[in-house]
């Protein structure tokens, strides 16, 4: 009869200390959302627009030469990087893309949005050391669920940060939504939100929940949480990796700074 306790005790500590000093975020080599260099963009070239499946890259109306870049629609598929002849879209390892204001996911020539506001009423003081998450799958590909489940593996060990998942919306502080928003889940999602006590927050996790992603529109899919619920944290990515999810949760608790403004990652 094997003794699992002993098996566990003989193993070295597996948890990363990240985001603490010198901790490993486990993301070496993972490609993030591509960076945009407007100065290198060849006016009038449409290669990247045609190659962008979810429509993150579009031409500005009335100013055909200008490119719109909306990271809220980006699935990090790297197609634009491959087709761009001038290097205006560059591969990067930028993944800490959580923002409080959806506008911050749109690339801006000059920063217009004011620095991220502290959360209203500073209720977060009460939750700074503990947070309970109710996750709802609003029609995902299960990539986001796979990374959410990874948060509780020994490497990321979310519990060490005082953050937990709860099966009941009655105990939840934050509703974490993944998926593009299918017609059959809409009333279910709203009922779950209703069942949560105040104060409550909402996080749109993954490009599908932010904008609908690759499944946006059509006969059975929506545009994520756009116009469905008030969102406090937007986190694009396909899927966002575990470190990005942890960063977003700590940002909500004001234990980490927002890293992206005007579509640019620090």
């Amino acid at each position: 009869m094997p003794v699992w306790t002993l098996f566990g005790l003989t193993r070295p500590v597996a948890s990363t200390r990240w985001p603490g000093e010198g901790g490993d975020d486990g993301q070496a080599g993972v490609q993030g959302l591509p960076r945009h260099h407007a100065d290198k963009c060849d006016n009038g070239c449409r290669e990247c627009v045609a190659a962008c499946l979810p429509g993150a890259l579009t031409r500005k109306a009335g100013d055909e030469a200008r490119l719109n870049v909306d990271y809220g629609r980006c699935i990090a598929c790297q197609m634009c990087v491959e087709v761009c002849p001038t290097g205006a879209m560059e591969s990067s390892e930028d993944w800490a893309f959580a923002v409080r204001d959806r506008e911050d996911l749109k690339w801006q020539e000059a920063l217009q949005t004011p620095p991220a506001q502290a959360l209203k009423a500073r209720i977060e003081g009460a939750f700074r050391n503990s947070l309970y998450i109710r996750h709802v799958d609003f029609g995902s590909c299960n990539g986001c669920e796979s990374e959410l489940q990874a948060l509780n593996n020994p490497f990321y060990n979310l519990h060490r940060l005082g953050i937990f998942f709860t099966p009941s919306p009655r105990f939840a502080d934050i509703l974490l939504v993944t998926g593009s928003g299918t017609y059959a889940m809409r009333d279910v999602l709203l009922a779950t939100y209703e069942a949560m006590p105040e104060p409550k927050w909402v996080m749109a996790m993954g490009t599908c929940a932010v904008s609908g992603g690759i499944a946006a529109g059509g006969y059975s899919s929506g545009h994520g949480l756009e116009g469905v619920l008030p969102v406090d944290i937007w986190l694009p990515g396909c899927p966002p990796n575990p470190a990005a999810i942890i960063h977003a949760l700590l940002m909500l608790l004001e234990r980490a700074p927002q890293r992206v403004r005007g579509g640019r990652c620090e």
Partner: protein
Amino acid sequence: MMRNTEERRLTVAELLPACEELLAQGGRMSMAWGWFPGSAAREICYLAAPGPRRPFVLWRCGVTDETLPSLAVRAPALSWHEREISDLCGIPFSGHPKGHPLVLHAGAEPVTPPLNPAYPREVGMPFTRRRAHAPDVAGSDIQELPFGPVRADVTESAQFLFFYLGEHILHYLPRLFFKHRGMEKRFAGLTAELGVVLAERVSGVGSVAHALAYCQAVEAAGGCEVPPRARWLRVLMAELERLYNHLHYFGHLADTTTLKVGQAEGKLLEERVKQINAITGSRFLRNLLVPGGLRRDIHLYAGLATELGRLQKDVNAYLKQLAHTGSYLDRLITTGVLDREMALAQGATGPVARASGLDEDVRRDHAYAAYADMDMDVRVPLRTAGDANARAEVRAEEIEVSFALLLRLLVRLPAGEVRAACQPAASAEGLGWSESPRGALFYAVHFDEQGKLARVKIRSPSFSNWRVFQYTVRDSNMMDYAINEASFGLTIAGCDR
């Protein structure tokens, strides 16, 4: 003319006799789909598998206004396929044993069948939820439990309807398709190259299997030759995907049998593979496959074989420990028995089928990528008990085979180009498949007259296995349900699409 398969044209009257003949000769029906080849034309396609290692045969039948005979009365594995075709293509079947909608929820009212090209592309279906179909179960002590669609900690959305008496489950019905995103329709109008980005996102934990089956369908349609190095690297990606999925499976199975250390170790091993996956730039091995090969080469660092060897040692120690844990085996042995006959009739696939004695694996039987070039047989583990333990044992042995394939591949990987041009001609058609961690996965691809995708049909292994799974739940215990479900290793995104 669909490539990669033989083809037969049948009339409506010939369908049922053809089906009976196929089954009498030991064949199986693999899938069925409908589509709209012209402005008013409708066609129904069936994929028949005449027997082990024999080529697939596509049956095509033009549909006018008549009702089609249900083949599900003879081949139950087609039951969900026919209901899906009714829902999405508006083609009715006569004599179907269970005629109510499957994919569309009660209260969804599309203006025309959603897969009809006349359906406006960006218009959602009006939906007011109505009471879903439920069987008539009556009795004073019988409890009814609708569990979900929001349930447990982090799970995919689905509802499970239980009718039970004490611990005993009298009837069980999975209500799926809450997550139906209409993915097959989203392919319409895309180029072959962009379609792969979509295929990778049908089921995240099956990104490689989906993209690979899609690419191979397109390559068949276009008659493209994939360079050898790309074919070998495709095997590398597919086996890494199998590894992290199977390790996740054991972590989850240990969780349902309340082995907390066993759960943690399984999930940690899964994480180690996901971090190795980053050699492709993605933890899900995405953004690399493309019709014609790979989008770029993979840089394999020098220590990779050593790292895989270390991982293999830890995985073996873990699986051995599990196999010697009495409390874990107690919960698995005799739980959720699927006998061979049921597995065959209802269309089980993958490790689920192999645990019930069906000797099949498309990596060996219909070899693709570089599986036939590696100078080693893909060993296909088999069990006959058909219980949760057999399903776990099959997966444990598959992990061994994956490591063997990976380590051989790293030694013999050929050098060279990784991409060839691949643009199928107008109206080309192709069939592709891959053995995903959950079983055989099929893509049928039809191009239109402009060389864009017209119709893409996906048969995911979870669609097949969810259908089979329900029959192992009836007359079992509530306490064993979670273990039984975990032992099937199903995804919902793959099933719902």
